[in-house]
């Protein structure tokens, strides 16, 4: 782990610490809680997508597993929320390994479709298994989390807790990338054959990282349940998987910091757009939230066409363009 990452985590921690004082509005604080949850999932997804080079359009399924495990075990069986979250992690882990063993043998398009198929199946089951999941009407009355006897019942407390988890996850992910495992993963991304001939057990490593990213997604789902206190299958459809991929890709596939940047930007985008729509309304231009999808797509497409390494990399480059002159050689590569 190099100095830049420490500084990055330190700066982010500072921003997080002062944020509730700067915002002071529960609604926006709530938006930032969802941002944290997306960051958590995206950090895991970035390890899989950017470092191991394996695409997954199935992470909405793991978010859903975490969310439903927390919701159902606490409301129907009266479990402690932490135990339910743990159970969610275990279920996601087992599912990821079972799905990952056959799936991760596939590459590229096949892998994308297989994970997409898996996520669609989970969504269909959530809607159809009315007896267990409550079907489209969902589960309500989910209890809040408690930490050391302190209920996480205000937006500020939940905010601090979720962002603390994001910081821990970041620290963990950055360390992992610079470890032997992380370098092995990047070797897999480069060339599976070369990695395997140098002694990287590619099958096991891919499944491990898939399972790890599933755990991140599951925790984020559990936190969602315990924050919103009501869930239905709506937010966990395939579109959510696509949105997660968009976040990672917009920020920059090959960097954890890029994934976090993307997650923050796209989570705040709907707010930005609704703010914009108020401005546009003054000029008699009607903006509906229905157009959000179109804008997500347009952003994703333009990033992929013009900045395939993502916004974070674009920003970094334009900075280093001013500070150093060796960017030209970097670009030449």
């Amino acid at each position: 782990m190099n100095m830049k990452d420490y500084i990055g985590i330190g700066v982010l921690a500072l921003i997080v610490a002062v944020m509730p004082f700067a915002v002071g509005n529960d609604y926006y604080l709530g938006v930032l809680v969802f941002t944290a949850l997306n960051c958590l999932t995206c950090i895991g997804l970035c390890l899989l997508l950017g470092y191991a080079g394996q695409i997954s359009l199935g992470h909405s399924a793991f978010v859903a597993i975490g969310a439903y495990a927390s919701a159902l075990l606490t409301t129907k069986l009266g479990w402690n929320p932490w135990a339910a979250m743990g159970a969610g992690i275990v279920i996601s882990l087992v599912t990821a390994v079972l799905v990952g063993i056959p799936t991760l043998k596939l590459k590229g398009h096949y892998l994308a479709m297989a994970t997409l198929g898996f996520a669609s199946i989970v969504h269909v089951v959530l809607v159809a298994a009315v007896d267990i999941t409550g079907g489209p009407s969902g589960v309500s009355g989910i209890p809040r989390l408690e930490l050391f006897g302190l209920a996480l019942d205000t937006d500020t407390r939940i905010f601090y807790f979720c962002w603390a988890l994001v910081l821990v996850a970041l620290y963990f992910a950055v360390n992992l990338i610079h470890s032997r495992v992380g370098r092995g993963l990047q070797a897999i991304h480069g060339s599976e054959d070369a990695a395997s001939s140098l002694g990287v057990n590619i099958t096991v490593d891919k499944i491990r990282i898939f399972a790890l990213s599933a755990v991140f997604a599951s925790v984020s789902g559990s936190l969602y349940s315990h924050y919103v206190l009501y869930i239905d299958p709506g937010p966990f459809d395939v579109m959510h998987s696509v949105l997660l991929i968009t976040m990672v890709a917009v920020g920059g596939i090959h960097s954890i910091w890029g994934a976090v940047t993307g997650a923050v930007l796209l989570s705040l985008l709907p707010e930005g757009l609704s703010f914009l729509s108020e401005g546009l309304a003054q000029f008699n231009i009607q903006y509906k939230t229905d157009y959000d999808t179109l804008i997500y797509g347009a952003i994703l497409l333009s990033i992929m066409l013009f900045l395939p390494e993502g916004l974070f990399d674009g920003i970094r480059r334009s900075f280093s363009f001013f500070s150093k002159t060796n960017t030209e050689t970097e670009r030449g590569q």
Partner: protein
Amino acid sequence: MMEPSSVSFSDILQYIIMGVQSGCIYALVAMGFNMIYNATGIINFAQGEFVVLGGLLMVSLTMTLNLPIPLSFAATTLAVTAAGVAMERFTINPVKNPTVLRLIIITIAVSIIVKGAAMGIWGKNSYFMRHFSGSEPLDFLGASLLPQTLWIVGTLVLIVAAYIYFFNHTMTGKCMRACAINRDAARLSGINDRRMVMLSFALSAGIGAIAGIIITPIIQMDYARGALLGIKGFGAAVLGGLGNSMGAIIAGILLGVLEAASAGLISSHYMDAIALFILLLVLFVRPSGIFGSSAAMRLKEF
């Protein structure tokens, strides 16, 4: 839900009719996947959106503007074909030396844009469209058969005939096949491979649009249907061996019948999961498909 013991011959026949009806659509979507795959090696995640565009545009032309069906059919197909060409020109063609990951995300981005645009234009309602020739079901050996189903099967047969003629008896079709077999060799023989890629997007979008047009009277189209139609069509393409369009047709119909039968015999709530489950099973057990030779598929990248 009915007891399994009470399943009669006419019920089975009914499942087969229902299955063939949706199977024809999966087959058409799968053919669309195959065309682009053969020309470029890309799986177009926006394939299902062509179907939705076709259906919704047809609804607007026939139901809102009250144009005659043949005219709307032609106009819709042309418009969606143009959309396919635009997609290739603006999003696929400009990208030099793309990675698979980048191409996947690009086609996903296009699918989000089309979906978002469709939602903006047509809203979230699902649209009814009048049947091509009457919506009165015919009696067929005790099972009911909609005239529209005959239109669907007939259209598939016509498209397959056109497909066979085009790829076997026209110069352009043969050039496209040459590109699919070996792009470098085709280029060395003077074939403009970039134009073939554009053509593959055009044909694929056109076939998708036709699939959307003929199914809309039965399923009622809405903006969000693309993803599921796309992934089921992909299931048919894989089941038939990716790139093999004749295999895709048989696989599509098989998938439709299996889906309809299990929906009738097990539970209709899980209907959508069944086709996906079959897709996963094929991908895990035999990614070369039931008609693909595993020796030839070993050369391809999964």
